[in-house]
């Protein structure tokens, strides 16, 4: 893998038969992922964009293998097709776009194939020794709230996935925060650039807050029962259907220690002040 610049990659025309010229294998939380390319020089660009805590593997073992093939011999605009198994994810798109799609998909693949860990779609920070989970789907404002909490002194664990082990503890998935500006453009900001630090150790969950952003909303969260809290986690669980037994057991353990709340929230800075007040008051 001699070059890290995709634009420098040797180009070749697409043919039906995929001929592997380069390969990259990594593992992350037990998920083993492979990326095959039909040209050398493309994959090095991915090395610093792999999911957090990924470990490069020498062994060509994977439960999930991507194929990246270059499709156009235009030197100024290399294109590619990305596939996973028999599914084409993007077809003949600019290489940069294809790599962005791959980077995004790798995180999904890790969340699906993780072994012994359960991925819940949630922001996660640690405040005074216990984790705070903020479950929510896309565009629920998780990153905004996580960022504000980190700026207030919380330890960063994730803006995307709460990674839970069998004891219900949350592990770091400290990818750069995907901060969206008002125009909807996403920039990836390492937590250190925000003056924050990423956690390194598993931590028990103390709080689960299912908050929904609404402009001008008044902060009036209501407590949830343990079962309701577990349901809020389950509805954001990546493999809720195939790993339902694991999910129930793990969430049962999470809710042994966690307080669960739900409600609407307004702007992040105001929410953080109110939220930290709630935490300090012990609920």
């Amino acid at each position, binding site marked *: 893998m001699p070059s890290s610049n995709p634009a420098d990659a040797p180009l070749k025309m697409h043919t039906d038969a995929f001929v592997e010229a380069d390969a990259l294998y990594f593992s992350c939380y037990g998920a083993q992922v492979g990326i095959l390319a039909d040209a050398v020089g493309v994959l090095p660009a991915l090395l610093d964009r792999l999911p957090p805590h990924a470990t490069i593997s020498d062994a060509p073992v994977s439960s999930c293998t991507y194929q990246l093939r270059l499709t156009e011999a235009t030197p100024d605009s290399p294109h590619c097709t990305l596939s996973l198994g028999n599914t084409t994810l993007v077809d003949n798109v600019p290489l940069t776009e294809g790599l962005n799609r791959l980077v995004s998909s790798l995180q999904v693949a890790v969340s699906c194939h993780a072994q012994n860990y359960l991925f819940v779609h949630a922001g996660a920070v640690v405040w005074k020794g216990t984790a705070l989970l903020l479950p929510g789907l896309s565009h629920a404002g998780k990153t905004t709230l996580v960022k504000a909490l980190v700026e207030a002194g919380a330890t960063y664990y994730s803006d995307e996935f709460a990674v839970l082990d069998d004891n219900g503890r949350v592990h770091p998935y400290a990818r750069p925060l995907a901060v969206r500006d008002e125009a909807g453009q996403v920039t990836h900001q390492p937590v250190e650039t925000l003056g924050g630090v990423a956690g390194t150790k598993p931590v028990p969950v103390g709080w689960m807050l299912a908050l929904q952003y609404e402009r001008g909303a008044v902060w009036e969260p209501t407590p949830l029962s343990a079962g309701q809290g*577990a349901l809020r986690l389950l509805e954001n669980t990546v493999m809720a259907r195939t790993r339902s037994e694991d999910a129930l057991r793990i969430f049962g353990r999470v809710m042994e220690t966690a307080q669960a709340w739900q409600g609407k929230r307004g702007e992040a800075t105001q929410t953080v002040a109110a939220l930290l007040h709630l935490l300090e008051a012990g609920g």
Partner: protein
Amino acid sequence: MAYPRARTTDLLLQSTGDDLIVFDQQRQLAHTLNRTAALIFKHADGTRAVADLVAVLQAELNEVADEDLVRMALGRLGRADLMEHAETPSMDALRASRRRFVRKVGMVGALTLLLPMVETIVAPRTALAQSGDPTCASDSDSGCESQCLTGCNSDSQSLSATQCDQFCFCNSNSNSASNFCGSDSVFCASA
């Protein structure tokens, strides 16, 4: 339903706090039952009549428990498809039972907590639990292929069934979403 019997097949159970979580593997639904609903679910084994279940609630919860409370719980469980041969009472009948019970105990906070609650969600498909990328690994080796469909359409992203009238059921056998709320298909039973 002289001797009500709760479903026992294709269900995963997990106690948490006072609640019982029930995962219906057949329908990919998850329910949380509060203590009253959970007691009825556990004791409705086909050998106990309604009067016996009243006695269970009186012993375990409070002496004010009565037949209305038991019938409410059975109705909620039946609507969540957690009973065998359920008689599914209408929402009007459930509300009438609730009104009678509340009138009996008054609006005393602690006693109204006795009201049976069953909250239901549809377990999300993998794609629905993702941010920005609807694609899970779709390779056939993964075992998660069936979870990785695009799933429901954009109108059904919110699958929580906390609002009975807005309950949207994502049909597990198709990629279409249909509004499942009707007069006889209300899953959440907190009304």
